[in-house]
């Protein structure tokens, strides 16, 4: 295995890990909002979060690229205040990847929260516990399979991402060249053995993650 293979696999892992960690922090408040709160714009927010499920990745990638451009407000803001250009950079791919994987994190968490009987939250409230205490001591411990599913789905989905990365990041070794891009690249160059190496690793990772999800969810229901 060459150094570029290892570099590409490490970058793929780095992107998936960062996406998953950041999405866990973003996804929980969103899932909580969608599961428990009623507000006027909820269908709009829900539709926006779930858009990546139906949207071609290239569409999102295209608009991200447009947004990153210094000739537009967001790109200009980043360049002026943070000296940051996101197009064709790891940061740019990471941001696009977070948006693109959002529903894979939010949906399992939302379903997990909804599956917890209302009376558990109410009991905790009547016992004087704040929503934050209830969240960490009652809700999260009773939805571990949903959290594992959300994390595994997000990670697996992120590893398999192609369209968004190629649009936003291109194919820069060590910066934006992730395994899915490398496969395409190697096939183009007719390096089928190398393409197979990447493919096999991605296949195994995805298979293991999905097996974990299904074995978690086949356990006996607690409620």
């Amino acid at each position: 295995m060459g150094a570029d293979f290892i570099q590409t696999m490490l970058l793929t892992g780095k992107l998936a890990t960062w996406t998953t960690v950041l999405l866990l922090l973003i996804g929980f408040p969103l899932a909580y909002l969608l599961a428990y709160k009623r507000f006027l714009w909820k269908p709009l927010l829900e539709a926006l979060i779930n858009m990546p499920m139906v949207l071609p990745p290239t569409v999102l990638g295209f608009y991200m690229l447009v947004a990153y451009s210094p000739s537009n407000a967001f790109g200009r803001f980043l360049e002026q205040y943070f000296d940051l250009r996101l197009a064709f950079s790891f940061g740019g791919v990471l941001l696009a990847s977070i948006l693109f994987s959002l529903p894979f994190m939010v949906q399992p968490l939302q379903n997990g929260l909804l599956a917890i009987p209302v009376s558990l939250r109410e009991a905790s409230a009547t016992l004087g516990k704040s929503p934050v205490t209830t969240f960490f001591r009652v809700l999260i411990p009773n939805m571990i399979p949903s959290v594992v599913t959300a994390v595994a789905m997000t990670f697996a989905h992120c590893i398999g991402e192609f369209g968004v990365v190629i649009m936003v990041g291109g194919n820069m070794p060590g910066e934006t060249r992730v395994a899915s891009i490398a496969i395409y690249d190697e096939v183009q160059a007719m390096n089928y053995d190398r393409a197979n190496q990447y493919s096999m690793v991605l296949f195994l990772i995805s298979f293991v993650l999905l097996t974990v999800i299904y074995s978690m969810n086949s356990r006996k229901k607690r409620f």
Partner: protein
Amino acid sequence: MNMLKISIRHAMVSAAGPSMLEIDTEVSPQELLCLYGPSGAGKTTLLRILAGLIKPDSGRIEFEDTVWFDSKTGVNLKPQERNVGFMFQDYALFPNMSVQGNILFAQKKKDRAAADDLIDLFDLAALVGRKPHQLSGGQKQRVALARALAAKPALLMLDEPLSALDSEMRTSLQEEIRKTHHRLNSITLMVSHDVPEVKRLASSVMMLKNGKVMAVGCPENLHFGNGPTEW
């Protein structure tokens, strides 16, 4: 004294159709008040309103000179601020915590001696390490009572605490409820459909139908007819 003053209006929708819950009453200190009536009468809704889990349309609730709810001034204390013990129909024990964990979690300040005291009172010593799914209905009920007491509530509310149990179990657990009430030395409100149970436990009874109070008084002076089926 721990007087509970209730004067509320709340629109309800039940299986029987829409109705208006109208309650104007005062509950004296140390009363064990049973709410009795057919389903859809508003018994559970009233308990949930008192606990702060439902906001009534209008009115005022006052307990121990503290206003819990007043639609005129916009006061509406959260459940956390009312210091009530609420026992749910499904007991709502936390599945991730052991029997002891449920009781310790409920305490405002960690006090193992007080928790052990409750564990003894409800005869739970052999079960402390068990999770709720490893308990029988009667055991869950005892844990739920112990947990409700662990927070040292000023007011205890029991929503059909014994409905899921067979008659033998009911009789023995009615004793636990009486014990709980005496220990608390405050007001207990309890929803029940069961006439013998009401007669055995209640110091007073409020009969509800379609959101209206039909009668209030000590159980000896009330006419129960043939029980809820007659309603």
